[in-house]
C-alpha cells in the first residue's frame, strides 16, 4: 500500500491551493456527451463534475457503459461525432471550443492518456522507439537523434530491460505488461502534468497489474502528476485513488475520499458495488451478491434517478418517497464532510447491515500485493 493516500496532509494541501487561488490541474464542470443515433441522442455522459489536483489521483469507477471512458476522451477532445457540452479547464484554461490544432499541442504535452488494450493501442508497423520519439519530436521540435535518446531514456524509466536495444523492436515483440509500460513511456515522454489512465490494467494478468499500478504511482510521486484512474475494479481504486467518483448511467452517483467511500458508502449503488465483491470470508455455498437488473438505456433516460429501478432503498421506500426517486432526478449534493451523493435516500453514516470494508483490507484484484510484505491482520480475511 505504498500509494495509500495520506488524507489529512493532502486535504491540507488542497486548502492551501484553494487559498492561493491557483486553479486546479483539471476541472470538469457539467460535462455532457451525447452521441447522435438514428433513434435519438444517446446520453453517454450526463452532467459530470470533478477536479484533479497535481500529485493526486481521482478514481472514476462504474460498470461498462457508465460513461467513464467517454468522459476521459471528452477531456482530451478525442471524441468525434459526439455532442459535447460543459467545461473542461486544464490549469485554468478552457479547452472546450479550442480548435483541434490547439488541442493537439496540449495532448501528450500537458495531458496524456493510456488505454486499456496495449496490444491494439500501439501501431504494429512502427518500432516502439519510433512511436515514443515521434511525440517528442512533434512537441519539442527535437531532432531524430535527440528524440531517440529520449525514447530510450523513457523505456528505461518504465523498467524495460536493455532499453536501447528494445527501442528498435516492434510492439509484437513485447508482452502485454511490457507493452503497457511502453504506452506509459509514450504518454510521459513529453512530461505532461495530467495522466488519464483508462483501465490500464484490465487487459493484463493480476501480477502484472500490480506492477503497472506501482509504476504509475512511482512516476506520479516523482513528478507530481495528476492522475485520473478509470476502472471498474474497486481493488484498483482502493489501492491508488485519493478521491473516487462513482458513475452510473453517465451520471455521478457518489464522490468521496477513498477511505470514506469504502468505509461507509452513501449511495445505494456504491453500496451494491462493494457488496458484490467476493470475499474470502464469504460462505462458499452462498451465491455472490449481485445488483438485480441491468443498467438503463441511455437513449431515453427517465425523469427520475437512473438507479431507482434497481435500488433496494427505493424498493423498500413508501409510495411517495419512491415516486420521488422515480420522478425526480437527484442532484449531486454535499451530504457530509467531503462527501457528495446524488440520492434521495442516502445511506446513513456508519456501518449498517453487512459490514463494510476499508480499502486496506483488500489489495488490488483481491490478490496479495507483491510490493507489500506485511501480512494482512488476522481476522480480516
Amino acid at each position, binding site marked *: 500500500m505504498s500509494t495509500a493516500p495520506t488524507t489529512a496532509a493532502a486535504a491540507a494541501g488542497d486548502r492551501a491551493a484553494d487559498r492561493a487561488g491557483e486553479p486546479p490541474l483539471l476541472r470538469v464542470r457539467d460535462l455532457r456527451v451525447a452521441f447522435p443515433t438514428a433513434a435519438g441522442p444517446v446520453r453517454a455522459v450526463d452532467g459530470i463534475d470533478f477536479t484533479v489536483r497535481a500529485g493526486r489521483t481521482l478514481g472514476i469507477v462504474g460498470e461498462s457503459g457508465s460513461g467513464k471512458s467517454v468522459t476521459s476522451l471528452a477531456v*482530451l477532445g*478525442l471524441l468525434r461525432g459526439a455532442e459535447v457540452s460543459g467545461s473542461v479547464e486544464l490549469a485554468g484554461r478552457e479547452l472546450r471550443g479550442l480548435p483541434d490544432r490547439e488541442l493537439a499541442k496540449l*495532448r501528450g504535452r500537458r495531458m496524456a492518456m493510456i488505454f486499456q488494450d496495449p496490444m491494439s493501442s*500501439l501501431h*504494429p508497423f512502427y518500432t516502439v522507439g519510433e512511436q515514443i520519439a515521434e*511525440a517528442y519530436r512533434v512537441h519539442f521540435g527535437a531532432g531524430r537523434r535527440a528524440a531517440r535518446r529520449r525514447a530510450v531514456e523513457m523505456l528505461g524509466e518504465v523498467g524495460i530491460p536493455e532499453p536501447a536495444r528494445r527501442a528498435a523492436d*516492434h510492439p*509484437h515483440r513485447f508482452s502485454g505488461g511490457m507493452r503497457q509500460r511502453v504506452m506509459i513511456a509514450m504518454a510521459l515522454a513529453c512530461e505532461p502534468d495530467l495522466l488519464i489512465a483508462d483501465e490500464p490494467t484490465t487487459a493484463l494478468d493480476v501480477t502484472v497489474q500490480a506492477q503497472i499500478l506501482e509504476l504509475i504511482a512511482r512516476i506520479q510521486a516523482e513528478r507530481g502528476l495528476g492522475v485520473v484512474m478509470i476502472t471498474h475494479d474497486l481493488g484498483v481504486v482502493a489501492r491508488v485513488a485519493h478521491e473516487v467518483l462513482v458513475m452510473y448511467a453517465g451520471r455521478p452517483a457518489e464522490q468521496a475520499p477513498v477511505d470514506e467511500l469504502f468505509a461507509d458508502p452513501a449511495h445505494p449503488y456504491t453500496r451494491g458495488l462493494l457488496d458484490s465483491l467476493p470475499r474470502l470470508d464469504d460462505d462458499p455455498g452462498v451465491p455472490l451478491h449481485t445488483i438485480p437488473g441491468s443498467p438503463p438505456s441511455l437513449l431515453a433516460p427517465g425523469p427520475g434517478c437512473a438507479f431507482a429501478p434497481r435500488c433496494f432503498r427505493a424498493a423498500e421506500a413508501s409510495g411517495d418517497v419512491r415516486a420521488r426517486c422515480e420522478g425526480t432526478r437527484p442532484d449531486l449534493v454535499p451530504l457530509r464532510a467531503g462527501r457528495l451523493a446524488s440520492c434521495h435516500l442516502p445511506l446513513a453514516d456508519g456501518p449498517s447491515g453487512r459490514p463494510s470494508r476499508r480499502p486496506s483490507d483488500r489489495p488490488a484484484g483481491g490478490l496479495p500485493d507483491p510490493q507489500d510484505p506485511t501480512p494482512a491482520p488476522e481476522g480480516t480475511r
Partner: protein
Amino acid sequence: MILYLARRLVGVAGVMLAICLVTFTIFYLLPADPAAAACGKTCTPERLAEVRHSMGLDEPLWRQFTDYLTGIFAGRELGEGPHALQCGFPCFGYSYEYSLPVWDLLTDRLPVSASLAFGAALMWLVLGLGTGIAAALRKGTRTDRTLMVGAVAAASLPVYFTAVMLIHGVVRVAGVLPYPEYAALTDDPLDWAANLLLPWTALALLYAAMYARQSRSSMIEAMAQPYIRTARAKGMPERAVVVKHGLRSGMTPVLTIFGMDLGGLLAGAVITESIFGIPGVGRLFFDALQRSDQPVILGVTLLAAFFIVAANLVVDILYAVVDPRVRY
C-alpha cells in the same frame, strides 16, 4: 528469408509446370488439327500424315509435352530434314500464322502491354486511392456518398462501353486527340503518351472505381484502430495521424489486389487492346484464338500465368517489408 524465397521459387516452378501440363493437355484434346491447317485445302491423306509427323503431332502426349518443355529450357529443332526450323532457347513453339517463334512475338508485344498496364496503373492509383481516401476521411458526409455513387457507377461500366464513348467523345466530337495509334516509347515519348491516353483512361476508370471502394473501406478500418486514437492522444497533428499511422496500414490490403491486377494486365488487356487497336499481348492472344494459332495461345497463357504467380510472390515479399509482424 532466403530459405523462404527458395521454397517459394520451387513452388512457382511447380505451379508453372502444372499450368503448362493442363494447358498443353487441353490443346492436345481439342478437335482442331493444326496439321490440317498447315497442309492446306488440297491435302492428301499421305501429305497430311507427313505434315503431322514433321510437326511431331503423331507423337504421344507425354512425348510432345517433354519436347515442349525441353524446347523452353534448351531450344529445339522443329520438324525434320532440310525444312527443319531452328527454334532457340527459350522455345515456346512456332506460330503457324506469323511463321515466327512464339517467344519473339511475345517479347515484341510485351512492351506494348506493359506501356498500357503501367500507365493505366499510375492513373488508377492516383484517382482511385485519392477518391477512396478522401471519402474515408469524410465518412458519412455528402461528399463521401457522392464519391461512392460515382465509383459504383464507374465500376458498373464495362470497359468496351467506356472505351467507345471515349473515342466518340474525345476523338470524333471534341477532336482533341487523334485516333489512337500505338507509338513506341523509345521512338517518341510524347507521341506514346498521347496515343495511350485514351486506352489508359478507359482502363483506369474501371480499376479506379474498384480501388476507390477498396481503399475507402480499408482506410476506414485503419482509422478506427485504437492506435490511431493513441496517435491523436499523444498530440500528433491530424495530417501525421492520417498519413503516417492511417495510410501505412490502410493501404496494405490494396497492395495485394494491386499486385494481382498489374500482373494480370501485363499479359494483355484483351478488350482494351482490341478496341484501341493496340498491338499488345492481349491483341496477339485474341487474333491467335480466332485463327487457332495454338502455340501462340499456349505461349500467352503461360506468360499470363507466370505474371500472376510472380506478382503473388512479389506481393508476399513486400508484405514482409511493410508489416514487421510478417516473418518468413
